[in-house]
């Protein structure tokens, strides 16, 4: 019922729907981790998933690019449509899907290779560059989009693991955008970063919104309020409330959302 209401609210929005999830259920063995989630993620918008630990927001995020496929006991039912195509269809190759739906993880995880190779890896395996010059161009463009170019342009051969935490995370973002995805999923991208690095990454997320649909999972409600236009509140595997960020934080409809935002549950 609640989802119907949020849907009515968003009919005023003119932006296209990028990902639509209908009746998504996720089971980990016997655990019912995600219960009947319906959500529509818009293009060129930052959507934040908030909720207490273990509420299933990361699990749901990982469903959006089928990263849960790597976990044997995980079972996903329901439809998730990317541009109207069901990503769990038998004909879909998850590898191709993940090139379209990039992902940035909680802990910065650059490959133990040079900065250049970190960014160039995706374009290389997808054959996005015909020659070295094109690849150089992609690497530079991606590092600029990751807002880290100026810091690393003189040491592209240095190992990516030698950068600071915040730089590593921005490198990972640059690596994710290098494959020209349409959606960027971010799983608590700032949880391992200090406030300054967090501010840089948040600024970057706002900038990325011009090109991509960004979905971010965060524990910080201030961060959700700062960077997102839409917010979804998860609780115990349910999507409790979904709507405009301003609406959720100032005038939540569900008492559970209000309790969480005011710090009474979590």
């Amino acid at each position, binding site marked *: 019922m609640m989802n119907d209401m949020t849907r009515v609210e968003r009919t005023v929005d003119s932006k296209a729907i990028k990902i639509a999830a209908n009746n998504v259920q996720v089971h980990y063995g016997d655990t019912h981790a995600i219960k009947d989630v319906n959500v529509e993620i818009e293009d060129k918008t930052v959507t934040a998933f908030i909720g207490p630990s273990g509420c299933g927001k990361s699990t749901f995020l990982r469903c959006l690019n089928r*990263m849960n496929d790597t976990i044997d006991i995980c079972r996903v039912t329901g439809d998730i449509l990317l541009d109207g195509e069901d990503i769990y269809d038998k004909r879909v190759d998850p590898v191709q899907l993940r*090139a379209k739906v990039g992902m940035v993880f909680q802990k910065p995880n650059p490959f133990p290779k040079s900065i250049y190779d970190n960014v160039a890896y995706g374009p290389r*395996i997808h054959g996005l560059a015909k020659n070295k010059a094109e690849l150089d161009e992609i690497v530079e463009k991606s590092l600029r989009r990751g807002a880290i170019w100026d810091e690393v342009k003189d040491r592209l051969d240095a190992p990516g693991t030698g950068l600071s935490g915040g730089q590593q995370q921005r490198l990972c973002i640059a690596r994710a955008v290098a494959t020209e995805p349409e959606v960027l999923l971010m799983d608590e991208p700032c949880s391992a970063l200090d406030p300054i690095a967090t501010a840089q990454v948040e600024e970057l997320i706002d900038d990325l919104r011009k090109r991509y649909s960004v979905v971010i999972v965060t524990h910080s409600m201030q961060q959700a309020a700062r960077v997102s236009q839409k917010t979804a509140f998860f609780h115990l595997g349910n999507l409790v409330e979904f709507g405009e960020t301003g609406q959720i934080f100032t005038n939540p409809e569900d008492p559970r959302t209000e309790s969480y935002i005011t710090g009474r549950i979590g």
Partner: protein
Amino acid sequence: MTDISQSPGASSAAKPKGSLFDKDARTKRRNAAEGRFKLYGIAAIGIGLLMLIVLVTNIVTAGTGAFQQSFLELNVELKEDKLDKKGNRNIEDIKKVSTFGYAPLIASALESEVQKLGIQTDLKPKEMGKILSKAAQAELRNYVIANPDEIGKTVSFRFLVNSRVDGYMKGRVTRESIANDKSISVAQLDVVDQLRDSGVLYKAFNPDFIFGSDASDQRPEAAGIGVSMLGSLFMMFVVLALALPIGVAASIYLEEFAPQNRLTDIIEVNISNLAAVPSIVFGILGLAVFINYMHLPTSAPLVGGLVLTLMTLPTIIISTRASLKAVPPSIRDAALGVGASKMQSVFHHVLPLAAPGILTGTIIGLAQALGETAPLLLIGMVGFIASNPPDGIVAGFLSPNSAMPAQIYEWSKRADPAFYERAWGGIIILLIFLVTMNTIAVILRRRFERRW
């Protein structure tokens, strides 16, 4: 106000129970327990080190003798009328002269040397000839066949001496200890003494021990470990070429691709159990499958290598899986996240990070296989006298040979104490190989270890 003025008094009432400078009984007991534990540790390591030192000293003192050999230098006249009656230097004709034909030449050379040096002895020439090794004639014959142009000339030749004489030179054999020995007499030792004093009988480094072939029971002085070293080498080729790719492929499949179900669990448990199976069982398996069923040649390094491959595989699989497991999952996620396929993520990212561990495991497995004797027992590589070096690469794999540990075992079984010395010498060479391989393993691990 009164409350405030009283408060310092109140806090002094809650005074600490004891000074920090005095240890209470509990702390003392805990410290004593910790001290005892450290002592146990030091004692354990100390005993281990002591044993190691005893072992190494023992091996070195007993084995170094094998690297030295006593030689007698004689001027031999290679008489043409004896060695090449037709005088046309035809190699086939020269080969017709057996070792018996060379015996008189050596005997007369020894006799003239003794006369030249003015050594007084009652020994008959034939008995005096027993100073020399039984291999002496064969040595000279091989030399002549290799250099037919020397026939007719007088050449200076270095002969091996009998193992008893060699033992006397090295101090293993004494005049007292030969009382019941039929192979040598005191009179012969008198001659030996005088030959040594005049410098024609001397000890020198013996490369033939390292590069030469095994010899029969009667001539330990001629035995070397070289041919069985080749046998070991060919076996290691087989083990490396089979165990590394099969083992690594199996572990990658089991670790990264195989579904987690009962079947893989059973396979996993069985691989761990295989690593603990006594190696002789693999020998029986090799005998049954490779020799009796597939009719591969007996005593061949190829079969030995196949058996050792079976034995090494579990070791390689276990260590490879452990090093694949040690690669953080975040690297796999990162690769999958940018759209790499499972195989790309494994081969581009996981495998390079696991490589040092895989290499170390492989080298340790190879070293284990190199030192293995028991499985070779059943396929006939123990007890075979490796008297001829293999003739080419194919023969190296297929013709009968021995292996270093098998050769050592063989020598240690033989009666002559000179073989005992050679067994220890062989152990030194084997240990040098093992230490070298383990050092390479450590260097490789240090070199390729990458931090993430």
